[in-house]
């Protein structure tokens, strides 16, 4: 009689996602919720023990109340929509440019030698220094803010794509050639799908950077947006709880977009496996 097969050392992903719902909640949600609760508790304790006034460090309940009133009174909403549109448009532009550039860098040694130094130099230059120049050249409208977002998220997406395309198993590409697939067919049906984990990994980083880019762009010139609201709440209204509520909104936006990319990644990559 043959011995039973040993279970692999690491569980395949299908086993993790097929766990009972209660176990998934316990594993995925409870630690995050517990950490958040601990953070809020410690924050409140710091405020109480330090007797900090609201204009220095408002407590979590004060910030939560201002967050709610900020949304229900229509203070945060319009600014949120402006920032969201800048992020999504910038991400689309930066994402497309990043993927195309990444493929070019992966497939052309000449392009890689020519472009790499300038791409790295652009990434190394702080966006905080570039943003005012871009606003000066292109105005303070949506176009310049979208460009700033695109610039900041371009690099991780381009690098992720380049690494992913270069990591494709050459035997798969050779198989495609042997089946007479055209270059575009090999790219679209073999190389890009194989490189998806790396491309989406770059997109995960890019999406959070795009939020940073939008805020910096609004500081360089803008009439609306969460970055503008931070300046308004701090410098004009002296409403520090609103400033904290705006920061919390920005963080939520970044987390939501990140989780969206994770969900897309799970769907696309799981479909492949």
């Amino acid at each position, binding site marked *: 009689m043959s011995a039973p097969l040993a279970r692999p050392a690491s569980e395949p992903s299908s086993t993790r996602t097929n766990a009972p719902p209660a176990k998934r909640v316990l594993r995925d949600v409870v630690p995050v919720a517990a950490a958040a609760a601990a953070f809020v508790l410690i924050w409140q304790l710091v405020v109480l023990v330090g007797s900090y006034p*609201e204009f220095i460090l408002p407590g979590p309940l004060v910030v939560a109340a201002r967050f709610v009133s900020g949304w229900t009174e229509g203070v945060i909403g319009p600014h949120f929509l402006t920032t969201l549109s800048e992020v999504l448009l910038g991400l689309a532009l930066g994402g497309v440019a990043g993927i195309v550039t990444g493929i070019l860098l992966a497939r052309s040694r000449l392009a890689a030698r020519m472009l790499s130094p300038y791409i790295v130099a652009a990434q190394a230059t702080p966006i905080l220094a570039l943003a005012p120049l871009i606003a000066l050249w292109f105005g303070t409208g949506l176009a310049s803010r979208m460009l700033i977002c695109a610039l900041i998220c371009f690099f991780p997406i381009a690098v992720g794509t380049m690494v992913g395309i270069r990591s494709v198993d050459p035997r798969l590409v050779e198989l495609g050639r042997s089946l007479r697939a055209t270059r575009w067919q090999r790219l679209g049906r073999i190389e890009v799908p194989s490189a998806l984990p790396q491309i989406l990994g770059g997109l995960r980083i890019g999406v959070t950077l795009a939020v940073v880019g939008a805020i910096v762009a609004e500081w360089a010139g803008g009439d609306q947006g969460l970055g503008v609201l931070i300046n308004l709440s701090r410098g004009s209204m002296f409403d520090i709880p609103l400033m904290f509520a705006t920061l919390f909104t920005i963080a939520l936006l970044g987390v939501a977009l990140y989780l969206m990319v994770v969900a897309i990644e799970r769907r696309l990559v799981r479909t492949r496996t």
Partner: protein
Amino acid sequence: MHRHSFRSPLLTSLIAAAVMTLSVGALAATAAEPADEREAPDRTELMVGLGFIPSVQFAQFYLAEEAGYYEDAGLDVTFQNKIDPELITLLAQGSVDVGMADGTSLIPAVSQGIPVVYGATIYSRFPNVVFAPSSAGVGAVADLAGKSVGIPGRYGSSWIMLQALLASAGMSLDDVEVVTYPDFGQGVAVAQGQVDAATGFVNNEPIQLEREGVKVDILRVDDVAPLPGPGLVVGTRTLEAKTDALRAFTKATLRAMEDIAADPQLGLDATFARVPELAGDPETQLAILEATIDAWMGEHALGQGLGGVDRDAWQSALDIMTALPDSVVASPITVDQLITDALQP
């Protein structure tokens, strides 16, 4: 065999949350040190917050320091340059003992419960104005209709002033095209014709434009709707702890202002001693100083003397700012909550 542990990720998350929060708390703690009355052997130390950058506009402080007025009053003064919103918070914390700020900052701050008060007027005329080349045809507020106006941002004294100015002529922001210049380049924008008019300080941008040979029209808000100009602001806790020192500081500063009004060269010399870089263009600095002195000498100052606080103007300003659309007056406050007489010599 891989063992799933519920405790490990939870414990890690809790530790991370604790470290994060304690870091935030430590940062806040170091930023919010209380101001104790520190006595040098003979003199009381005062940290004085002035505007964004060293300028001949602060000549009275430089002269009072150079001429020994502060030392004679038993004070050891240190100057610090901060932008208005940061200064208000630092004054309330006690990190800065006395600073310069105007009603457009003080009124929203006090309405939010930030413990600061205004003790003495420096600028009897509101220095933030709308200016335009005479060729733009902006001789009156009504002429702004349909024009483009450059502004640093939709916040602060210039934003409030612009709205009050427009409201005085029955206009609103919808009647003008507002163009923001976050790098404070609106003066250059006017010179280059990018905008028809701009906000700026009467002792800065219009002076620069006129020295380039451009004739300038100026619209002053205090011709139509009085707003309290910058003056000496203190935190209420600091006021309690250092009343005598702050009153002495006020007296010494007002004395320097009188000296400069009588002889502007004294202000220039003290400024150049303090900020040698400004001595490269003494003519421009003199023009700025003369415009500054003019802003000190408004109707109330000429009638009541330098430093006095015009409570009627403050009440009017409070009413104007409360009535503005998107008012920054968060809760009802009174003039008594905004002003103290404790600094008056």
